[in-house]
């Protein structure tokens, strides 16, 4: 079971509380066994869908079958370490602006579970510490 979490802010929604990404242990196991396609397979699919959203045709949008099939047929990238699996996850599941663009402060951090508060009373006021 991974002891890591990723805390992040969405650069487009800085008024929202800091978010916490919880990796799936099953997926981490898969990643460390080398069962993932190249990350570019997901990026291509995400790009196509974002374009459809921007053009107002999301409800009738369908992925290109060849690109879609690549998530099953592309050669696997081989076993990853736990850190590499987390980096892959960040590049797949966090908003791309978080990690692909320069900001005046870090937009995400990898932390351990015990660094995330368990008391959620003021959950909507959480901010990433400097």
């Amino acid at each position, binding site marked *: 079971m991974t002891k890591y979490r990723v805390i992040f802010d969405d650069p487009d929604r800085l008024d929202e509380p800091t978010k916490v*990404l*919880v990796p799936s242990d099953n997926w981490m196991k*898969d990643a460390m066994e080398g069962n993932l396609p190249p990350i570019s397979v*997901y990026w291509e699919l995400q790009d196509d869908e974002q374009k459809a*959203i921007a053009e107002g045709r*999301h409800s009738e949008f369908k*992925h290109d079958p060849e690109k879609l099939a690549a998530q*099953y047929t592309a050669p696997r990238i081989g076993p990853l370490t736990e850190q590499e699996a987390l980096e892959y996850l960040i590049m797949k*599941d966090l908003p791309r602006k978080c990690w692909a663009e320069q900001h005046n402060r870090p937009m995400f951090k990898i932390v351990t579970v015990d660094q995330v508060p368990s008391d959620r009373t003021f*959950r909507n006021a959480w901010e990433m510490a400097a």
Partner: protein
Amino acid sequence: MSTLKTNNIKEVTSGGGKVNFNNLWVNFNGTGTIAIRDDANVTSLSDRGTGKYTVNYSVTFPSVNYSIVDTSASVYQNTAISSYMASNSGPASTTTGYLSYGTEYEGNVIFGDAQYLSFLVAGNLE
């Protein structure tokens, strides 16, 4: 006993029942430090604030026209919690690769955390 491992199940003859779906589900605790109890075909879960979650898929669906079933339950303050799809969570709360999701107290408009959340998705692979 041998183990069959596959990502896709498809019918090989026409005219039969369509066996062509993704099996994607997650069961998680949305209180405290949120944690996934178990899942299939999920990469991660994002805790976006009180009662607001995003489920990220490890399989991308061909379109957004797939089917979702969700449940939530809580014993918090003996109050029933009902769940619904959050519609105010981004440019597209449902995409082919993730779903943004919210839980609120029954009859209320305030988001609330739930202890037992589960989420099942079924859809075509192509």
